[in-house]
């Protein structure tokens, strides 16, 4: 299931949802707004329609490749503060290896394939976040 919206992410609710299929193993990743280096707010922008389609395509790939029982991505948009959850990724499988690998695949590929943009505010300064080369490298390890 894909959810993209401005509502705060309730990690307990997300975990309950991904755990509901009776899987032997559930893996989750939660991305938080970092509290370091003076960031006051983080704003997430997306491309309505295209973002959801990109995430749905990743879920379909992950479910097929690792025979998942269930998978979900919940991504928040709008203005957040340090400590807020930006993204929740959950995968449910019969065994741990599939759940863990699929979860890593989804967050790695989300970072390079899904149209989201981050803007950080520190005091009066607002700055768009630049992509990191390490994100491309992390995503590339899943191809082939």
């Amino acid at each position, binding site marked *: 299931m894909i959810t993209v919206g401005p509502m705060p992410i309730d990690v307990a609710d997300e975990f309950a949802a991904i755990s509901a299929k009776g899987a032997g193993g559930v893996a989750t990743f939660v991305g938080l707004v970092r509290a370091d280096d003076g960031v006051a707010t983080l704003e997430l922008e997306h*491309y309505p329609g295209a973002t959801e389609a990109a995430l749905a395509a990743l879920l379909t790939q992950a479910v097929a490749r690792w025979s998942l029982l269930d998978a979900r991505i919940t991504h928040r948009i709008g203005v957040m503060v340090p400590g807020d959850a930006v993204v929740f990724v959950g995968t449910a499988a019969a065994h741990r290896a599939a759940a863990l690998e699929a979860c890593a695949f989804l967050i790695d590929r*989300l970072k390079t394939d*899904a*149209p989201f*943009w981050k803007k950080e505010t520190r005091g009066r300064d607002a700055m*768009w976040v630049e*992509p990191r080369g390490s994100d491309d490298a992390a995503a590339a390890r899943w191809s082939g």
Partner: protein
Amino acid sequence: MAIELLYFAWVRERIGRGSETVDPPADIVTVADLIGWLAAGSDGHAAAFVDRTRLRAAVDQNFVALDASIVGAREVAIFPPVTGG
């Protein structure tokens, strides 16, 4: 033929709007052609498109290289490299 353009992040901010409808001349056939044509038409577009290595695009919501065709496209989006997650 009219094309709906969408801009995101600092591309949107430099242009000063998130969308517009344009009707480019017939010799504008790729995303790169479109970027050049828009940049010649306004300072905001020129500022947004000054470094094309930092631009990404989607044609009808499919992510493409800047040399991709826009012939027959209904929607073209131009934006910076993505930074989600």
